[in-house]
């Protein structure tokens, strides 16, 4: 395993909070309210982000938005290339997705393969009217023709770098940082 070290902190707790509120406003503006709107977060941090967005939307608009959790493990395109198979968690979408306007939520948009898997998973659950994508960070390096409709922050990165999103619920921190390999950090 290569060790990683922090290169830069790109968002702190306050920036995270403001970004979530801004995206909530953008969704409401675009959808003109909460009618037929539902959020689906991709496990694990996308699900947390979706919960936060739903809370922000409710604060702004006064109406609750249904939130579901999607586990995309079973739809990954690299299952035969990683061993052992990753742990599968349950998909929990407690509403019928047919004819809803869904906003898919994830923390980091990178190659686009997770979103491809999520779109396939959603289409197995029904036929939403529309699906949009909201991400906290877009770090570039897409390998598929996928783009986000709502972006918290665009962060150009090197392929070797990591984007670490940390949420209090899981990580006892509230921040987004860029990490780089520690071994030859100066030689890049």
């Amino acid at each position, binding site marked *: 395993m290569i060790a990683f070290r922090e290169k830069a902190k790109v968002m702190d707790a306050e920036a995270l909070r403001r970004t979530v509120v801004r995206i909530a406003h953008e969704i409401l503006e675009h959808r003109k309210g909460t009618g037929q709107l539902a959020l689906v977060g991709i496990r694990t941090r996308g699900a947390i982000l979706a919960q936060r967005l739903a809370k922000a939307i409710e604060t702004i608009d006064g109406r609750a938005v249904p939130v579901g959790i999607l*586990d995309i493990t*079973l739809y990954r395109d690299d299952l035969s290339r990683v061993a052992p198979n990753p742990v*599968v968690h*349950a998909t929990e979408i407690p509403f019928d997705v047919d004819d809803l306007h869904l906003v898919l939520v994830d923390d980091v948009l990178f190659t686009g393969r997770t979103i491809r898997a999520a779109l396939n998973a959603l289409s*197995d659950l029904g036929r939403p009217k529309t699906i949009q994508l909201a991400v906290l960070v877009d770090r570039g390096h897409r390998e598929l023709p996928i783009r986000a409709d709502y972006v918290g922050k665009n962060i150009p990165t090197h392929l070797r770098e990591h984007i670490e999103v940390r949420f209090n619920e899981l990580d006892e921190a509230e921040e987004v940082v860029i990490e780089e390999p520690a071994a030859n950090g100066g030689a890049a």
Partner: protein
Amino acid sequence: MMPTATAKPSTQTAPWTKKDLLGLRELSAGEIRLLLQTAESFREISLRPIKKVPTLRGKTVVNLFFEPSTRTRTSFELAAKRLSADIVNIATQSSSLSKGETILDTVKNLEALKVDVLVIRHAAAGVPHLIARHATSSVINAGDGSHEHPTQALLDLFTIQERKGRLEGLNVSIIGDIAHSRVARSDIWGLTKLGARVTVCGPPTLMPPQIEQLGAPGAGGAGVRVTHNVDAAIRDADVLMLLRIQHERQESMLVPSLREYRLRYGIDRDRLKGAKPGLLIMHPGPVNRGVELDSAVADGPFSVILDQVTNGLAVRMAVLYLVSGAPKGDEDEG
């Protein structure tokens, strides 16, 4: 006795690295918990309008059954199909085995067709283990003689955990033909490894010698408690698992008559009067109504027999998923 103030976490899972699932004896408590946790995640798929995920697309599963089976074979078949694998059913009656081909030749031929998972049932103990040693594909034991039936035990564990919220510290009584039951043996391994206390009960003729030494050492020290008194087996039980009494046992004179078995060991409503509230009634099927289990109990509020069938599908999906992801090829035997 020590006070039960143990703070050790009972939710710890271990990563899955095994090519095969041959029995619960070979598995650690952590591996069993991972299987149960994975099954939990798979259950939702069968509740969808489109009951299918693409996970095992392009994999080929072979049901190689040397013994007749309907429910286990169908359950594996649906599990494979819901994961988008292709599945081939081979029953010995219609195969080259009836022409004298050896089992290993059959397996070699199937492997030449590039299959990925072999699900094997055989009347002789150890056949799946033999095949697993010679095959590069994954082998799942779907029942070998009176030895093990791991997926049945896993679905039993899953069903108990679902209903009771835990396995640790529960009293589980297995009643019936213990001697000829692979389900009982796998259940004993699985239950004792996850901290349940197991009592086996049945006529002395159907009780294998030294069964009390089977299983992982429990909180009380011993593996399994043995009784021939069915009321004693019911008294403290949180779960009753009934086993099928096969008609052949009567012909081989191990049981005087099915009627006498019913009088001594059959479970009816009267017999359950002294039972704990919330008792679960389980049976691996097919049920001999009116022999080991009365219809009023089999269809009654305590019965989770059909839950077992539903959960079996999720468990088998989990097993197929995990063995398919394990590293293949030249491994050392554990």
